[in-house]
């Protein structure tokens, strides 16, 4: 880390987090963006039951910048899908921004994804035939925003990621870093409660990765809640809090300083 640690992540006291995850059935306070209580997720893989999540208790406050780490098979992708409202748990509660979303219908989840969550994927997942501007407009299309307003907000989001000059380019005319910044602009355009990034640097070289990490850093500084799923410790240590998952359970949940310390020891 060549950057000095400016501020320590505003982590709540452990006791406070314990309290909020253990009061089952109760809506958490407005301060908590994400609260999961005993989330379990099992898959039936051709007769064999895979227990991907075996009871995850997680509480994330507004404005936190959290990395979810873990080796493959640890359940981090499943957790990301549940947090991102792409999947629903078999058991347990998931409260997103004060709403219990763990038992919602498909279409209700689609609305939640549209309003509350901004996704950033490893493979960018831009529509190849659409321009950068149109890609960024897409979430607004499904939110029912008028065409003029859509264009205005999409331009604004693209200039937030320094892509003013690239609005009419298609994804194949952009570099990897630029594509990922288009994806970030798309994730931000609806002012979501959380920015949810799945291995955001997995397809990028180290210089571009640093560039994307700086974008995340500055978004976090501006008060955006950021949750990043990764298996790379280098990337995870950019976050201000690191949750490590192992075998479908939370193995550790530390401030960055503690995580970096542990890394140094091992």
């Amino acid at each position, binding site marked *: 880390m060549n950057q000095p640690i400016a501020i320590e992540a505003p982590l709540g006291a452990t006791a406070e987090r314990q309290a909020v995850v253990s009061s089952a059935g109760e809506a958490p306070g407005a301060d908590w963006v994400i609260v999961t209580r005993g989330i379990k997720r099992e898959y039936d893989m051709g007769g064999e039951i895979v227990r991907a999540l075996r009871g995850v208790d997680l509480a994330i406050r507004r404005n936190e910048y959290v990395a979810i780490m873990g080796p493959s098979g640890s359940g981090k992708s499943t957790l990301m899908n549940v947090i991102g409202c792409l999947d629903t748990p078999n058991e347990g509660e998931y409260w997103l921004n004060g709403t219990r979303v763990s038992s919602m219908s498909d279409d209700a989840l689609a609305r939640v994804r549209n309003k509350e969550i901004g996704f950033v994927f490893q493979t960018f*997942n*831009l529509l190849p035939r659409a321009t950068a501007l149109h890609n960024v407009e*897409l979430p607004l299309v499904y939110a029912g925003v008028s065409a003029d307003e859509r264009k205005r907000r999409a331009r604004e989001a693209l200039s937030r990621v320094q892509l003013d000059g690239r609005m009419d380019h298609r994804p194949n005319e952009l570099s990897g870093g630029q594509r990922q910044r288009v994806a970030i602009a798309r994730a931000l355009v*609806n002012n979501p409660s959380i920015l949810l990034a799945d291995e955001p640097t997995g397809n990028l070289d180290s210089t571009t990765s640093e560039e994307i990490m700086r974008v995340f850093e500055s978004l976090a500084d501006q008060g955006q809640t950021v949750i990043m799923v990764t298996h790379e410790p280098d990337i995870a240590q950019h976050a201000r809090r690191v949750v490590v998952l192992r075998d479908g359970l939370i193995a550790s949940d530390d401030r960055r300083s503690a995580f970096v310390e542990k890394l140094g020891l091992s």
Partner: protein
Amino acid sequence: MPFLDAIRLALQQIWVQKLKSFFTLLGVMIGVTFLIAVVSIVGGMSRYMTEQLVGKIMAVNSFELRHRPNIDLGDHDDNYYRELRRRPRIKESDIEPVTSALPEGVLWAAVGNDNLSASSRYVAKPRLVLAFTVTDDYFTIKRMTPVSGRLFSPQEFARGMPVIVIGQDVANYFFPSLDPVGRELTIRGIPYQVVGVMEKQGSAFGISFDKFIVAPHKSPINRYVNAHGVIDAIMIQTPSREGMLSTMETVRQVMRARRGLRPSEPDNFSLETSDSALEFWNKIKSYLVIAGVALPAIGLVVGAIVIMNIMLVAVAERTREIGIRKSLGARRRDIMSQFLVESATLSTVGAALGVATGFAFAKLIAAVTPLPAAVELWSVFLGVGIGAGVGIVAGAYPASRASRLDPIIALRAE
């Protein structure tokens, strides 16, 4: 997803893959082409039948007293024809009693016609012409006017002078590059003087209406045309349609009285109107419409199956796109409508092309065959509407499959 955006997206999709889209649309296009062609031709024939052909055979608001129907193309059994053969003919002697019973303002003409051999000194070979013998009001009822020369004078009618007016074909054959007026045409050996040439009547289904000559009823060929005092018809025209029905009843009563028919006995004569001619046409038309709709329907079904397949392929190819859209908040109905609009647009474009080629086809048929064609505006809407309908039906299953994809699995697709 807003409707117009979806259509724009679909049109882009078609444009990007022009050749593939063309083959996709071929089935719908051919179906609609034939539908439009058949509708245009049936429509053209229908208009022709009502406005031209029947009008030429039968004058407006008129009916004819005949011993049997002139236009009789329905399917009848032998008994019907046996009955027709037993009927007495309409005679010269019927004219006076029937016409004296007609109300004021009603026109009538006794008409006889037969194919007779004619010759002129200008052409070596004699030829058959359709010879009519008529009384005074015939030309008024039929609204026929000469293009050169004149019609008959009352004296020529009254005295049965050997004068004739002739049709265009007769003029062209017997008097090649000559003015026929004042010249002589010999009919069955009897010399007649041509006093007028009638305007062109045209043709229907390749049969010309211009091979006729008309002579006064009392003129010499009467003995051939109306042998033994038998005439073909008494043509009666009333000023209005309502008057026609009551006049028909009057004529019916006079004839029944003359024939001594008991109330239980049916008429042994026919009163023919243009309706009876049209009735037959309507029967043919209904068969044509059924065939004209059933055959293109096969094309449309094939077209629908092709579109359904193409849409299933599109859904498979764009699984990832569907995943992306779902992750960004597209609901089932958003995905559903996107693919439905796409398939409906695809099919409507095919139908629009089909309408265009259908019209071209109908025009071509009209140009190279005697069949007429009429291009109707409503058939454009019909064709395009069918296109959209086929697209929606064909797209329903693929669209519903797309909408039910699990976003997690869809995002993982390549």
